[in-house]
């Protein structure tokens, strides 16, 4: 027979093991709730600044084409493309306008950490931008859940 103390230790261990996936899941952004017929994830990873405008134009045009209620759009940035999401970027007005109509913006935490190492200080993303653990991972996660990938 196990002593009461041993039983408690087992119970704690089992509890910890069961809780692990919960903690692990919290490090990943949840999938958005959407009933939209069309789901699109826009990738921006290019260092060319003109791509910043292009990706915002595409988001706007897709909304116009399908109708705001019928399409769910998430813009995911990683690599040099993360500059679109950084505080001070003058596209913030357009981004806010798109956010107000439901477009989400996600920035890659891996990239932000790498940039921080190069710069010697942490970078701030614009208000409303969500930080996801890995930009490429987020795109694959959304794709697996039915989002179509578009890289302008």
């Amino acid at each position, binding site marked *: 027979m196990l002593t009461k103390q041993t039983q408690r230790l087992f119970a704690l261990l089992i509890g910890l093991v069961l809780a692990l996936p919960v903690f692990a899941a919290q490090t990943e952004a949840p999938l*958005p709730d959407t009933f939209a017929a069309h789901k699109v994830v826009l990738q921006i990873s290019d*260092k060319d600044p003109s791509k910043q405008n292009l990706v915002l134009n595409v988001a706007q045009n897709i909304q116009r084409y399908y109708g705001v209620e019928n399409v769910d759009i998430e813009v995911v940035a990683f690599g040099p493309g993360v*500059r679109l999401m*950084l505080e001070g970027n*003058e596209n913030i007005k357009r981004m806010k306008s798109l956010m107000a*109509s439901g477009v989400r913006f996600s920035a890659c935490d891996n990239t932000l950490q790498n940039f921080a190492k190069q710069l010697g200080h942490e970078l701030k993303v614009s208000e*409303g931008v969500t930080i996801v653990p890995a930009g490429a991972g987020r795109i694959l996660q959304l794709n697996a859940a039915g989002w179509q990938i578009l890289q302008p």
Partner: protein
Amino acid sequence: MQKNYTTVKKSALLIALAGALTAPTAQAANWLMLQGTEKPNEAPAAKLWGFAQIDYQQTDDTKLPTLTGGAAGLSGTSAAFNQMAPQLNTSSGFNIKRARIGVRGANFPLDKDVNYFLMAEFGNNGITTGGGTQGQLVDASVTINKIDGARVRVGLFKTPGSEESFKGIPVFNYVNFTNGTDRLLIEKSVDNSAAVAALPDGVPAGARQADTLYGERTAAAFAARDTGIQVFDTFKHNDWEYSYAVMYGNGNGLALTDNDKHKDLYLYGSAEKVFDNSDGPRRHSLKMYAWSQSGKRTVDNTAYKRDRAGVGMTYFDGKYRAAAEYFTADGMIWGGPVGGATNTPLSVFTDQTADAYQLDFGYRVKPNIELNVRYDVLNSATKKDANTGTAIDKKRVFTTTTLGAQYFFNKKTSARINYEIRDLTAPTALAGSNPTKVVDAIDNRLSAQVMMVF
């Protein structure tokens, strides 16, 4: 670093609310900001850009009239103001006036707080002649945007000042500068270290004016630029942008380094109401500004004062354009070639005053066609001195009405044609003296230009 995974709807609502409550940040949409900064987190590491202007100019080539005294030898020779600058060899012809190539951006794009600007001139103008070189460096600056409200720009760059000289040449609406800007603001240094008598058609003793340097150009025209440090920024409040700049520079133009211990101080302030959130060099706005420059120039070991100050306004709403400017000059002012001839020493008055003004209107008949009219007056050498009322009186009044039309092929390519109705008088010179005869030789001028930016 923030990490939040709030739902879309909540964040959208919060952001919409935040957007409605917070004032937008200052943007790069005026000359200080357009030339001195880059868009944060958007600028490339290196953006290659430049522009070229191909001019055609023509006058009737009226020669200098019969002159008397020491200037008699200049009778019947070409009049400088009827020739094409800067060589003054012909009264008509084509000229690659400007051909500039440069690179700008954020050298380390991750750092939105640092940007740079480099540019060189390969065209044929005052910058590349008279001591300047083909490929003359005209801009080499770094801007540090680390301190809110006090950006710092160091190096060689355009000095904050008169709209006509400060604005980007690619959006200049005429072929030629006004007389005031050309003679008072586009500074040309003259070196008198060589004996005047050794120069072609040396100035006879009787024709030498008081407080005047005679000599040759030995350096590139200053091109409204200087090497130094500038603190500046723009603050936005609703539709208004308020800008300031304080610059401390060598006062030695494109020379890269100084030639004396005296420095120039440049001050600039503007208030601009921006229409429809427009931006860029031709944005729609109403701007009012004031500026001053003060310094000294050392020539042959003597320091001479050179001060300028002015006020002005610009307006453009997409269809109508208007601009007005007034400025004064005190100290050194340009005298031009002796006798108005093309092969005589150049003169600079060292203790004179002048004032100039211009009124400029534009009307877009169509989105790609603009009609222009500009009226400008320069009262040069207005201060009474030992020469006033004599046969070597310095005072001149330049009055020009310019009629023009511009055609915009696209945002980066345009053509313009100008007809300048020019008048010149020497109102206080001795009646019948040489100055009163020379001024009558000035012709009207026809000019055309094609400009492309890449």
